């Protein structure tokens, strides 16, 4: 990893999420992407302003060296309510964390956090060679999808085990939106490695610029209290998604997944 620390504003798309990353604390504890772990994320929406709009929690339990189970909890604000979803996904420990079987449910809750029953959806699924076999209630659905494929949430796990610059770009179909929308022609590729001043708080410092006669002092942004953190980044591009950049630390832990206006930012306190 490069030793010279750079600023977030120098990196796409960290620059867009700079305010959301104020105060971010890079995790100090050890992390083994192959092992058992829990990652919790605040979900930020950075459009006209910057606000937390929900949370995501992923817990990985290794089943053996080749398999793992991901327990996912998701919460998002709604207008006068809250949306909750949960999933349990058994996946391979391969480059894409290919899902094998899963179950998921979601429900909208009202302002008092009571479930609105007719918004509840429960489903189970299983991956076949060329299709997903999903069961919603009693109804069986076949979703055509050529291998390789994976889920959006599985990628949060998979990118942590990728080899950085040595990664040969992966091409696959994304099964998005809780395992139902097949989006082909996805590409996951190494983007960059950099040491970045993360967290802290944005401040303005004066920088002297000499002129022929005298000098001017211009404000330049800097971060106070930031932590230089070695990062690797991967790009995901493809149909039906605004490009995503995944940022992992030296241990492979996914710190940020950033796409357009939406950012997932690691925060152990995030409540999904």
């Amino acid at each position: 990893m490069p030793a010279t620390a750079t600023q977030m504003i120098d990196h796409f798309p960290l620059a867009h999420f700079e305010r959301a990353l104020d105060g971010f604390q890079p995790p100090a504890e050890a992390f083994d992407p192959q092992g058992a772990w829990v990652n919790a994320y605040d979900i930020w929406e950075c459009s006209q302003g910057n606000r937390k709009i929900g949370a995501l929690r992923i817990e990985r339990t290794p089943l053996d060296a080749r398999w793992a189970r991901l327990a996912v909890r998701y919460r998002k604000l709604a207008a006068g309510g809250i949306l909750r979803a949960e999933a349990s996904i058994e996946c391979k420990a391969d480059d894409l964390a290919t899902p094998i079987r899963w179950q998921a449910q979601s429900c909208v809750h009202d302002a008092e956090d009571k479930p609105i029953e007719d918004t509840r959806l429960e489903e189970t699924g299983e991956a076949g060679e060329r299709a997903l076999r999903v069961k919603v209630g009693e109804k069986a659905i076949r979703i055509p999808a050529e291998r390789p494929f994976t889920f959006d949430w599985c990628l949060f796990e998979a990118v942590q085990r990728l080899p950085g610059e040595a990664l040969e770009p992966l091409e696959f179909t994304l099964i998005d939106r809780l395992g139902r929308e097949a989006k082909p022609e996805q590409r996951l590729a190494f983007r960059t490695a950099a040491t970045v001043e993360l967290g802290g708080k944005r401040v303005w410092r004066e920088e002297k610029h000499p002129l022929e006669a005298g000098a001017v002092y211009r404000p330049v942004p800097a971060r106070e209290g930031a932590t230089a953190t070695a990062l690797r980044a991967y790009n995901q591009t493809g149909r039906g998604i605004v490009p995503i950049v995944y940022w992992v630390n030296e241990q492979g832990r996914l710190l940020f997944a950033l796409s357009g206006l939406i950012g997932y930012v690691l925060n152990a306190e995030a409540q999904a």
Partner: protein
Amino acid sequence: MSATRFDRRSFLRTTASALGASAALTSGRRMARAAETRPNILFIICDQMNLDAMSYLGNANVRTPNLDRLAQRGVTFMESHSTSPVCSPARSSLFTGRMPVETGVVHNDLPIRQGMPNLGQWLGDRAGYETVYCGKWHIPQGYAFAGMAGFRALPTGAGQGALDDAWVARTCEAYLRNRGAKPEPFLLVASFMQPHDICYWMLAPDTLVPSELPFPALKDELPPLPPNHKSFPDGPPQVGTGYPSFDTDLRWRYYLYCYYRMVEMLDGDVGRLLDALEQTGLAESTLVVFTADHGEGAGRHSNVQKWHPYDESMKVPMICSGVTSLNFNLRHAASHVGAADAGRRLKFKDVTPRIDRTHLVSGLDVMSTLCDYAGIEPPPNARGLSLRPLLEGKPTEWRDHLVCDWKAEGKIVRTPQYKLVTYANEPKVQLFDMQQDPWEMTNLAGDPAMASIIEEHRKLLTEWNARMEPAPPQG
């Protein structure tokens, strides 16, 4: 007047149709019959989508298999216009059949004038529909909320499309799957945000569309710029939006790339709803109407956003599906209970997709169309026409012009050949020959030969304005 191919008589015909809420089109007999065979209605609204942002229509920059699927089962209108290229005003028309000047929603974040019924109230009270709303509302509250007039809200929305729309789709799917057998039909409004997220790209151009292409591998995939990208026809100063412009073609093209990916996100969510209809057996008893509130600059005339009077802002998708292929009057009886009687269900085998390139249609027409299928008259003074005769391929008289608002005080008069753009108290106008110049690159207003055309369009506008019942100013 010969150039516009309409005359006083045809104008009066149009006026009578509009004012009389298409009495000739919706006879009492048909109404009574329709009331016995009311279809379910899925009304899908998206936000800031260009009419031509679909692979079905030959756009090679985007792939929309689900919207294509929808279009292949119905009628796609190519002369479909928003009543105003801004969210709230356009939506107020979709839900009332009245012009923004009448609803009082002349700019964003205003409520519909008190006492003016919305679609949910009208179909719920008059036709006995179960009326349900999920997603963006914006008249004025941003999203469907408990206690909203006319609808039961499924409150999933709270933010932008990339995050919210999946849950709008999933929640609507849950509603469709969980609904079970009910005697009354439903009106379900699925109101998506995408591809509106692009709205924020120009608010943070440096961080979202940096000077260097942020994904170099995409270089060969970026869409080309539109043919009118560098066209800036003279016109009223209000035609400008005040938004900055990107300084390089590469940035424009990456902006377009992102826009089309947002359309594809929407497409996936629409697909989820269509799947749910099919898998629950409701598809053949459900009228699906898909439209947008307004379009998107998409680099045309170097524009982003909306607000402007050009077609990139004014024209919106309008697809009605499940109509031409299905004879609701003959086989709707079992449909509300999931078409348990499979022997009475018809498949989509007789579908003949149609692209209607002729008829001028408007967001105003949604109210009249849905009322027609619900077997009720539209609210008094609804300005739209029912699309039903067009959908069913029946002969009908149709309007020969329509009027759109822009930026509150701007007006557009569109006839089959011409488009006149005016602004209050502003002498400069724009006149485009939409047949010869569909990209709106040459303002003909300065051509003395066009003076009579302009005058005739102004006259249409004056007469249109005289029929309006403006709401008191608010907000």
